[in-house]
């Protein structure tokens, strides 16, 4: 195991040597972290060069995985790091090397300018807009630097440390009629500001506002369409209507009490959301989780993957106009919830994983419940495939519609099933196993065309693979503890609590105050229901996180919409929206 780790660390650090050779140590500063990837501070002036280098290096870092900022002004423990008031970080992925790399740039309060990366990585666009929105950092050269999540009329930058996190810290909210008119006027779509023409030589375009409340927008999502007849000439997705400031809340909640908030990020994913968070916290705390806890976690995460994919399948076919399947998939979900409810005590948002394990052990009789579900699902999946995916109307609506190639998908940061639909066999559970996935035997289904049909079909196959994983969990559930015996396990195992005063105090402190984690940074990426989801945690030696960055797959998937749908028809757009499987809570956080 240790040799394996050091080998992968070597590969991960190969890029550091390459960069050092090219740019020298005066440009680059290395930071040791628990993120499992090299972290390099780069001088702002050389940022674009460095990025172009890693993008074009042999076995390139083709995917800009994440980009965001940190307000460093209140951070106590930053010895050895370049002085900074704000930091912008870039997380890059190389699928060929199977490693990540983090680049950081230090900025000072009186000069918050940084060159844009929109010309290097296309998907930097929305990330930079969000960073501008949240921190007020000016990305010089950005084609349309405006607020993304907050309303255009908003004052202040919410993720700054001097911005209040609670409503009670503000004056009471009022809205006058004039104020309402002003807000509504600010939301009016202005084609000229997006470089759109109102008419061409022989047509007047229609600008159609699809959403924020439209039956097929899958939540509060708005997309402004420029239409020629029913053909989509251009479109602008507009997000932020579901923004709750989950990252800001993390800075006020203890490491333990933030777990329920993670449930609500991808609200169809349930405990799947807890997984990257608790894994990242466990890295900070240095907890090794018992094998039984890992297996229980995998089993429940896969239950939720099936649950989420069933919701996808029903609504996807509903968007194609087939009204019946959604009722069938919902009764299947009911059966999944039956198992989930018996094990966790909740349905949609169990918040059931804990730092160091799970909330409870599996209840008596869980085997039969899981067995019933495993027997129930396969014939239903076959039926969906036969009745719907083989239907010629469905095929006509979905084949070769809204296609994208692997390279295009990577440019836009597309991950998960939508990436695999293009034929690329990248699944985080296989590529970099976490929580004991290396012990399971399952296949990675891939598509061929990267079209709407493949994205739908792939998820049916993924459900079959998830059933296989659950079956293995059922057959080989290890004995042992469901919680690690570690001082930072929260809450600590109750049976040990009443033994002596030391454990009683620990229990009391961790339940009332929360565990205190050493200053460091950690990172965990998982293959969530909709794609790659990760938590990047910064601890400043406190009971709360200093900065929690949640990278969600749906955000990237929505940014890509104009690239695949322009030139298609409105019904194609609806089919595409159905096929990318997003929930707005996962986009806006």
């Amino acid at each position: 195991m240790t040799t394996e780790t050091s080998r992968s660390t070597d590969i991960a650090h190969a890029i550091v040597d390459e960069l050092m050779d090219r740019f020298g140590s005066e440009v680059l500063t290395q930071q040791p972290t628990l993120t499992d990837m090299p972290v390099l501070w780069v001088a702002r002036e050389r940022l674009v060069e460095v990025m172009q280098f890693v993008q074009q290096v042999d076995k390139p870092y083709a995917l800009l995985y994440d980009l965001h900022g940190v307000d460093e002004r209140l951070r106590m423990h930053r010895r050895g790091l370049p002085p900074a008031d704000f930091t912008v970080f870039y997380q890059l992925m190389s699928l060929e090397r199977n490693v990540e790399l983090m680049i950081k740039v230090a900025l000072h309060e009186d000069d918050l300018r940084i060159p844009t990366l929109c010309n290097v990585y296309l998907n930097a666009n929305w990330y930079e807009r969000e960073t501008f929105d949240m921190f007020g950092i000016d990305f010089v050269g950005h084609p349309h630097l405006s607020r993304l999540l907050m309303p255009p009329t908003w004052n202040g930058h919410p993720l700054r440390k001097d911005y209040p996190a609670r409503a009670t810290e503000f004056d009471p909210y009022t809205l006058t009629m004039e104020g309402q008119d002003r807000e509504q006027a600010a939301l009016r779509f202005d084609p000229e500001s997006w470089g759109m023409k109102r008419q061409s030589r022989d047509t007047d375009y229609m600008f159609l506002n699809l959403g924020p409340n439209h039956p097929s927008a899958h939540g509060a999502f708005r997309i402004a369409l420029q239409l020629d007849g029913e053909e989509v000439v251009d479109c602008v997705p507009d997000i932020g209507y579901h923004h709750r400031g989950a990252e800001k809340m993390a800075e006020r909640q203890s490491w333990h009490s933030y777990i329920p908030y993670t449930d609500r990020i991808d609200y169809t994913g349930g405990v799947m959301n807890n997984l990257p968070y608790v894994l990242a916290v466990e890295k900070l705390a240095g907890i090794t989780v018992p094998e039984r806890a890992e297996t229980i976690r995998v089993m429940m995460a896969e239950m939720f993957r099936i649950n989420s994919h069933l919701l996808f399948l029903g609504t996807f076919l509903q968007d194609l106009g087939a009204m019946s399947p959604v009722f069938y998939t919902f009764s299947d979900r009911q059966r999944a919830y039956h198992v989930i409810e018996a094990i966790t005590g909740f349905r949609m948002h169990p918040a059931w994983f804990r730092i160091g394990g799970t909330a409870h052990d599996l209840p008596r009789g869980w085997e039969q419940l899981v067995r019933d579900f495993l027997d129930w699902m396969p014939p239903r999946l076959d039926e969906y495939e036969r009745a719907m995916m083989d239907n010629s109307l469905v095929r006509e609506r979905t084949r070769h519609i809204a296609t994208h190639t692997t390279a295009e998908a990577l440019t836009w940061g597309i991950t998960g099933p939508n990436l695999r639909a293009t034929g690329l066999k990248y699944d985080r559970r296989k590529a970099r196993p976490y929580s004991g996935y290396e012990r399971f035997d399952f296949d990675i289904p891939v598509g061929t065309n990267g079209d709407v049909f493949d994205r739908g079909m792939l998820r049916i196959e993924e459900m079959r693979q998830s059933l296989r994983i659950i079956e293995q969990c059922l057959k080989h559930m290890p004995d042992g503890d469901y919680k690690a015996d570690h001082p930072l396990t929260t809450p600590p195992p109750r049976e040990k609590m009443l033994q002596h005063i030391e454990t009683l105090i620990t229990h009391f402190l961790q339940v009332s105050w929360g565990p205190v984690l050493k200053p460091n940074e950690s990172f965990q990426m998982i293959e969530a229901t909709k794609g790659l989801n990760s938590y990047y945690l910064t601890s400043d030696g406190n009971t709360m996180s200093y900065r929690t960055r949640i990278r969600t797959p749906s955000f990237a998937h929505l940014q890509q919409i104009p690239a695949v749908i322009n030139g298609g028809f409105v019904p194609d757009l609806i089919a595409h929206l159905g096929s990318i499987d997003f929930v707005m809570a996962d986009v806006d956080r």
Partner: protein
Amino acid sequence: MSWLTSDVLVLTVIAVLKAIVILLGAVICGAFLTVVERRLLGLWQDRYGPNRVGPFGAGQLIADMIKIFFKEDWVPSFGDRKLFVLAPAIAFASLLLSFMIIPITPGWGVADLSIGILFFFAMAGINVYAVLFGGYASANKYALIGAMRASAQTLSYEVFMGLSLMGVVAMTGSFNMRDIVNAQEGFWFIIPQFFGFVTFLIAGVAVTHRAPFDQPEAEQEIADGYHVEYSSMKFGMFFIGEYVGIVLVSALIATLFFGGWHGPLLPPIVWFALKTGFFVMLFVLARAALPRPRYDRVMQFGWKFCLPLTLINLLVTGFFILLGA
């Protein structure tokens, strides 16, 4: 006034009463279908459907009527008020009036027009205005797209809907519906006019905007299309009108291709009701089973497949009639 004898008066009163009974029956059937459809969909979709009001949920209709009558009857201030009010009236009336021509039993029927089928085509043609006015008068982009889709679709499908029935007309030698039913005493027209039946069924679904040809409404795409701004009973008129349309098309299919009231043992009215009910079920089943094709494909299908098929059908029918003569 010498012609106004008591016999004539009685006959007139009876005819008027019959007409009222039939048209009222059609409306009630249409209205009741809203509940029947939901129950049937429930059956096919692994759920119950409305089953709380009255026995088997039959009282749901009354509850729905009360609800829809008491909803706010909103007329958009930015739209065209006159056309907005006129549209649902046209939608409802044009389809209901078509019931006039349907011979229910040898003794029952509203009018025995010599132009029979042509009257139905005329009414179906007028029905397009309802959608067009509704979509235009709402001053809503979704409604406009829906109206555009509906007009284009209905016009295209009416072209071959007319042609699909010409085989039946040619074989009977009359547009009169009673003549057509009487001509089917030996064998039903479904046998010689199978392609006519298929294309008429397709066109009938398209003209009533039912799934899978519900592109003008397409909730998932254009949020209910041309009647998106309608509420209360104005929406109700569109809604019931659609179901009256289903009953109408089903009754027409039964009359034109399946021998109308003809059938062994059972009385004519029962045969007529059974046949009509069967096709109503078919409409509901299609909605439960099929996804929605893309709008441009629907148009292509109409022009490139159905229209040539009806033309060939007509030619072949004509050939055999000439051969027989």
